[in-house]
């Protein structure tokens, strides 16, 4: 039941339009690059200092001086540009990046996002996530609808330390596509084999359902 992580990535890829500069976070967001629609020009920004991120290198092309924000070896493309970290975040903070896709541990119905810290357990740091969510014109979150114990990750209020306030626009989970609107999560689409009731049961925040909810096409 529901989408696997590739299904989530495929659905998000449909949100990417011709001519966009896009920042992809680590995890499911990285997979989105594999499913971008044919025939559109998209430039991927890597916050460690690269515009125009190409595919992984072949064994012969591997260069320790060419990595992405996930520390993976990568390549450039014709038209790529390399720059320092301050300039990279000028692109992000200055709203020159059109779309940010990132993972989350929790999202609130007001569009707050928590994805950087579990007090006493996980202390890895926020990396570029706080800068990205504070300034992105459009943020799509890729996440599982519920935690492993079955508890909802779409909440009234985040319980974990937040990364940013009132910033998430759209969420694609294994169960549904939702939009953050005044008053809660508006259900836009449901995953194949998933009912509106299933989604209601898995959503702790206010779920807004208007009319028929179509199935996700991927």
């Amino acid at each position, binding site marked *: 039941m529901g989408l696997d992580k590739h299904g989530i990535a495929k659905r998000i890829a449909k949100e990417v339009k011709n001519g966009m500069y896009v920042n992809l976070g680590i995890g499911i967001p990285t997979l989105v690059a594999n499913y971008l629609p044919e025939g559109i020009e998209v430039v991927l920004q890597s916050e460690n200092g690269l515009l125009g991120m190409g595919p992984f290198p072949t064994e012969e092309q591997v260069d320790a001086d060419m990595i992405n924000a996930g520390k993976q070896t990568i390549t450039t493309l014709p038209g790529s540009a390399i720059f*320092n*970290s301050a300039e990279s975040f000028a692109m992000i903070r200055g709203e020159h990046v059109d779309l940010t896709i990132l993972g989350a541990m929790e999202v609130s119905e007001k569009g707050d996002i928590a994805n950087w810290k579990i007090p006493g357990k996980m202390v890895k740091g*926020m990396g*570029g996530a706080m800068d990205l969510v504070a300034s992105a014109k459009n943020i799509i979150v890729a996440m599982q609808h519920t935690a492993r114990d079955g508890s909802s990750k779409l909440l009234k209020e985040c319980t974990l330390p937040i990364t940013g306030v009132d910033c998430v626009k759209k969420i694609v989970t294994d169960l549904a596509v939702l939009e953050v609107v005044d008053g809660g999560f508006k259900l836009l689409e449901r995953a194949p084999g998933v009912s509106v009731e299933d989604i209601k049961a898995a959503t702790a925040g206010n779920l807004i359902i208007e009319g028929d909810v179509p199935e996700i096409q991927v």
Partner: protein
Amino acid sequence: MINKTVENARQALQGVQDGMTLMLGGFGLCGIPENSIQELLRLGVKNLTCISNNAGVDDFGIGLLLQQHQVKKMISSYVGENAEFERQLLSGELEVDLIPQGTLAERIRAGGAGIPAFFTPAGFGTEVGEGKETREFDGKMYLMESWLRADFSFVKAWKGDTAGNLIYKGTARNFNPMMATAGKITVAEVEELVPAGELDPNMIHTPGIFVQRIFEGKNYEKRIEQRTVRTA
């Protein structure tokens, strides 16, 4: 032209003392000053405050300084690749200041540019903003963040000349250019050191005015954290 050349890391690090604040360039293990880190290990200086985007891995980069308990405080944006770091942090042996990556880059840039503070939206409404001055500009809320400066900055470049001009390669550039501007003494280690005049002035990333000491590094390992390849 003023000659900034020193013989080796040992000469370059003269004057580094316990309790100093150091900046170390790099993103992950990419573009880190490997030779200067080795010399810090040899010197055994302690109670250091290290400003670096990451903290290396357990057995390389700044992770080596953590193993020897030379670091009192880390100022970083992401430290997820280092288990020893997390252990020292959760046990209270190590202080840490986690800073949004763009804010970290800009605070260092500001330090080098003589700008004591600036406003950024990153972290507003989160625990990063606690206790900080906030202000509204054009209907949006911002946090005031202050500059960062260091006693010594250690940067790594691809090529450099005897005048201290630097050229970086690939994504090994990252934090190095800003850190070069923010050290009271900036030490640049390069893979290839050439006489002044051999580098095209149009291609210089860091002008030599920011660099006090430069040397050609040795035995670069350039370890790769995530070796990802595709079949040709």
